[in-house]
């Protein structure tokens, strides 16, 4: 496996600037988005975790939209999370 392409300096500068200006915002926004989405999933697909809120007949209708999230959702439910994670946003 080749480690990386030769970096072009302009791209590197742009990337660094991106990292400096927006990366943390993008990440924290995505995180927030995911949390709300998980909340949403608990509300709608709660029966997956054994807490049915919406009748499963109806939660099935929402299922197609959730497909991309289910895997990471379950992954995250299994992962330990800590306050030191919150510290960084």
């Amino acid at each position: 496996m080749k480690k990386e392409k030769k970096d072009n300096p302009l791209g590197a500068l742009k990337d660094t600037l991106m990292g400096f200006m927006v990366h943390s915002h993008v990440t924290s926004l995505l995180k927030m988005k995911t949390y709300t989405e998980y909340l949403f999933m608990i509300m709608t697909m709660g029966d997956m975790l054994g807490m049915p809120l919406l009748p499963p007949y109806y939660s099935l209708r929402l299922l197609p939209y959730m497909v991309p999230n289910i895997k990471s959702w379950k992954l995250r439910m299994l992962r330990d999370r800590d306050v030191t994670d919150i510290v960084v946003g």
Partner: protein
Amino acid sequence: MIYSKYVDKKIWATDPNRPTPAKLYTDGVEYFPVSRYVLYGYQFKSVAALGPIVGPIVATAFYGWLPALIWLIVGNFFIGWVQDYSAMMMSVRNEGRSMGPIAYNLMGDRVRKILLVYIMIYLIIITAVFAWVIVDTLNRIVGTFIPVIFILFMGAIFGHLVFRLKVDILIATIIAIIVVFAGIILVATFPQIQVPPVNFLDPKLGTTTTWPGSLTVLFWLFLLAIIYYIAASTPMPRFLLPTIFVGFLPTIIALILVIIAALFTPLTGLSMAQAAVKNLWITDPSVFQSGPIWPILFVTIACGAISGWHSLISSGLSSKQLEYETDARPVGGGAMITEGIVGLSSVAAVAILAGSIGAATNYAQGAGKLTSALIGISSTGMTLFYSVFIVVMGLITSMLFVRVWRNVAAELFEKSIFGNKHVAIIVMLIVMIFLAFTGSWTNLWIYFGGTNQLLAGLALLLVAVYLASQKRPTAYVFIPGIFMAITTVAALVWETYVYANFLFANKPLGPQTNVAKVFGQTAVQISNGFSAVLGAVLAVLGVIMTTYLILGYFRYRREKAKSA
């Protein structure tokens, strides 16, 4: 450089082919591979705040610029980047886990809990210290306030433009730059709008010093509290996030400019006006500032040389997005070295000033002088620019800290009233106002440095424990870890001693005289008593944690010896 390569290859044996957590657990949110340049930018932005600027000023004021310079360079090269890098690698090798869970895995729950309490105290102290720095700058560099207001409003508008009206972010950024600089230029050109004047609520106090306990300070502190409250309680995209974005626009320019200017000093003809070395060995606690160079210097300059905060960033986010293990060195190490350079530029900025120094305002003056010599804009204009820079940096960092506090409180006190976001924020802001209003900030700064450095020491020791558990060489982190831990506990004890000394003598620290005059000596006693207790608690926690970690370290070492 050679040292870092050695550590990279020999101890961690980084391998670009070993999949990183970013690749193993990609979830597109926290875990996903990101180019090392982006990560470098991110890491630098997250670690560099007011820390690397204020610390060197205080140190230069205490001991002269030479010791500050030496510690920045030596600390950064042998301890600072080691910590940032190692914390990152440790996290990478632990599925991208953060410090807390790793500590839990290696050491059990108690260590993790102490770590959390530690972080909370840390957050309060740093916010209080920054509050003072901001207030002092707003008060003494007249005219700073209006450009800052421009930036805050521009932040809110920027959020509206980009997130609501869907204006392209580049266009919005250009608008923001124009507005932000319009604010600064406007105020710089028209002295009549440079309001409010120094100590405007306490004309009797003169115009040279900002006094704790004065109405002016209280006014500014309340203003800050309101801003922080809004930032921490409203949804992120409304205010906090765009304000940070807009605030960073002048910041990045200011940083680049001052670094270049510092490098060019030989050409611009500025020379050191401060003594290279001052009194290094103050052991009389009634001299409330300073103290013996060991341990005080090593906590005074925290960020820039080494900072525990970084280990949280390294292990919290960067480690989850590292594309190749080999990127850890440029990202973690690189960002730290860059921060060291910021610290050095800060030393340079104040070292060229004559007379007594010791406040962030001196940095504005120094950096103003440095850069004005470089680009030829009037020194007062540039001073104003750097003063805005300090305030905005302080505001941004503090807003984030208050928000982090709110989240940590929500997590820790889920069930009780302190978990409520409004209560948590208000409690924190009250403590912040109290400390900043009644305290002597240089002493608080040492507390901040102490907590921060101890965190660094603990992070290093944790890495040592981890490496011991992995049966790898540990000396390169264990020795600095022990050094940092002992140094900072000593510093905390010293500072506690200073506070206790004033407490028992029933006297105010220098800057507290005004508090004593206005509110009576009791207020000072409460403040100093609180500070003394705080210092003692921090020192004790530090000793406990260090002991735990060292014991853990030897336990793993013994296992290694046995299995060998």
